């Protein structure tokens, strides 16, 4: 009965409060609508309470204990008003815990069967070094565990950090903040972030459709993609077609540059993306990117014509062009059941400068123009199963060492690899993948690799990009 009284009281207060809103007499129409809405709410509440009272009465009749029902009667759900009166509620949820950042943890591991290779760098290309996160390891391995924190900082900024945790080390993969309130299609990002060049570069390992990144990325940037410690400016054009332009400057300490500890910016990048839909079932995105970096003394291993290992330090500049294309298909544009994704990227890299061998004893000219590409298709044929095929091919291209006083052996090779995979996802948060690859990235070696991989996402996992 007490509840019924409360309903009536609440309704009366609402009615009394209503005229106070009518500051303007001409707002009669609006008031009427509001009153109607209020009545609607009261009717809703009444029906809700009646149901609950009926349920309570039923419970009371049968229950031996009176206390639990008493508790239920005063549960906060009943007392909450039907419509919150916040001016512009951002979201229906509230509570102190909503101030906590979104935390996500990705568990990744694999069993790999492959040949043991001492120096596994791609033939005809300078080793980009980097930290393989267990990708070159054999047998059962734990890849890095990815920990992501993200949150809005205040009404103006949003921040995110991604830490890759491995035995005895924690690597800051990303740590950036970006604007949320700049408007006019503009966004600024600062800190350490994955560069916006190419298509796959911004994606983390758990988003990849295959185990291991394309050879092209490994040759270009090593094992972790290209990250900038710097500043990114992006702008989306006010058009019906998606056109996005971006520019970056950064410290440029990563391959193909190195840490020159400058006051200025050691790397610059530009990229442009366009995209759209064709009909209801097809969508696409294409991009063109350019990256310029400089190296002061980028060290890598070489072999002389006489089979002696020497260390060379490259001093000069690298320019990378990447063209990327992604196409996705889903029947009626509904990817939940079936969908298909095709992606392709092509790069050209030219380097020019000097190569100092044996601590500057010999100085070679160093000029290269190299290229490569990959093509990949993935088909999801039921909500749980996907299958995919990827082809990688690189060309060591044109390499010139001038007079070559150090007798460095020039390796001419076209590395290639074909991979096929099938994966099963219980939900969007858990996936297991079986992959077979025929890897010919090292001259004279054909390696048939089999990998069984798992990817498990815990916590509030953010949405993935297209």
């Amino acid at each position, binding site marked *: 009965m007490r509840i019924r009284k409360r309903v009536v009281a609440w309704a009366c207060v609402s009615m009394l409060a209503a005229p106070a809103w009518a500051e303007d007499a001409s707002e009669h129409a609006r008031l009427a609508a509001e009153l109607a809405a209020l009545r609607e709410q009261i009717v809703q509440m009444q029906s809700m309470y009646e149901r609950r009272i009926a349920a309570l009465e039923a419970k009371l009749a049968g229950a031996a204990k009176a206390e639990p029902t008493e508790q239920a009667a005063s549960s906060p759900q009943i007392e909450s008003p039907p419509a919150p009166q916040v001016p512009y509620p951002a*979201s*229906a949820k509230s509570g102190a815990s909503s101030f906590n950042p979104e935390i996500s943890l990705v568990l990744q591991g694999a069993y790999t069967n492959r040949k043991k290779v001492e120096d596994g760098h791609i033939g005809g290309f300078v080793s980009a070094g980097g930290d393989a996160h267990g990708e070159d390891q054999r047998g059962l391995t734990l890849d890095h565990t990815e920990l992501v924190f993200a949150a809005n900082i205040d009404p103006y900024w949003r921040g995110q950090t991604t830490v890759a945790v491995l035995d005895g080390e924690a690597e800051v993969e990303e740590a950036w903040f970006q604007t*949320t309130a700049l408007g006019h*299609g503009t*966004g600024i990002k600062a800190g350490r972030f994955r560069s916006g060049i190419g298509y796959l570069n911004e994606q983390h390992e758990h988003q990849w459709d295959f185990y291991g990144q394309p050879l092209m990325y490994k040759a270009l940037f090593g094992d972790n993609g290209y990250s900038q410690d710097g500043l990114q400016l992006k702008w989306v054009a006010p058009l*019906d077609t998606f056109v996005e332009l971006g520019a970056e400057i950064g410290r440029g300490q990563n391959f193909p540059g190195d840490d020159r500890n400058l006051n200025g910016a050691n790397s610059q990048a530009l990229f442009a*993306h366009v995209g759209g839909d064709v009909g209801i079932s097809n969508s696409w995105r294409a991009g063109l990117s350019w990256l310029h970096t400089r190296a002061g003394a980028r060290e890598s291993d070489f072999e002389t014509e006489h089979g002696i290992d020497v260390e060379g330090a490259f001093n000069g500049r690298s320019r990378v062009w990447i063209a990327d294309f992604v196409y996705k298909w889903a029947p009626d*544009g509904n990817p939940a059941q079936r969908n298909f994704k095709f992606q392709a990227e092509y790069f050209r890299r030219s380097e020019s400068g000097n190569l100092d061998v044996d601590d500057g004893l010999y100085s070679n000219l160093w000029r290269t123009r190299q290229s490569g590409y990959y093509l990949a298709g993935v088909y999801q044929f039921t909500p749980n199963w996907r299958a995919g095929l990827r082809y990688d091919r690189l060309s060591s291209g044109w390499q010139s060492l001038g007079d070559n006083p150090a007798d460095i052996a020039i390796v001419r090779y076209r590395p290639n690899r074909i991979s096929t995979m099938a994966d099963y996802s219980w939900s969007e948060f858990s996936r297991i993948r079986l992959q077979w690859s025929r890897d010919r990235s090292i001259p004279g070696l054909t390696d048939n690799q089999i990998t069984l991989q798992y990817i498990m996402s815990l916590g509030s996992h953010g*949405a993935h990009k*297209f």
Partner: protein
Amino acid sequence: MKRILSLLLLLCALPAVAAVKVLATVPEWGALAREIGGERVDVMVATTAMQDPHRIEARPSLIARARNADLIVAAGAELEIGWLPLLLRESGNDRVQPGQPGYLEAASVVQLRDVPQTVDRSMGDVHAAGDPHLHLDPRNILLVAAALSERLARIDPAGARVYRDKLDHFTERWRAAMIRWEAEGASLKGCSFLQVHRSFGYLAHWLGMDVRGELEPKPGIEPGSAHLSNIVASQQNAPAAMILRAAYQSETAGKWVSEHTGIPLVTLPFTVGGTPQATDLFSLFDDTLARLKSAVKQP
């Protein structure tokens, strides 16, 4: 020269009445925006009735639309969590960010049902804030319509009067329709159904129907054959009157259960455009009721 300049200025001044660009995440709110905004709004809808609103990708075309929108109308309660936050961030549009006048969530003006007491991923894709499929209770449509009219008036004050009048007109027609629907739906009271996903909770609540369960073992998880066999077994003694499926949901599971139990599978439009008949909000409810009633008559 001066002449050309003044002519150019005049040309720039001419399109004074620029339409308010509304981006609705789902068709029902796009249809409502057309009702309330009329000629003054230019409505784009991010999804169709054949698309699962939980599983949309943040496509480039959608980013371009979010970039140019003056108002985004979303269902909220985490329905679009897999893509809308990304659209908003990538758009670089400050006017439509959560907390701004240009961002409206239907769930924020309606009392949500089925708010889970605890939330854990082992429960599947649960919505912590409550069931977001709130538009199939026509009383909720009125609440959202009032909020939408107020929001449009805030963004486009010159049209405030138009939005108010349109709201009044809509409310009047909607109330009349609701009386008709409730009379038509009276025979459905107490009628029980199974559903593919938790899509029809609000509809059941409004019509006094009885939800007997879902074909999905957990929200967002595809049903396996063992699970479906259990459902078939559970329907032997007191079978539900029908199995409800939204137009965008896969037919396979519902068809299988229907074949093994004899319970009719009913495809409802779920939202505007889900069936050829459901062309606006009024015909959405007309068609939904017609399909429910013909299924009850069938046996």
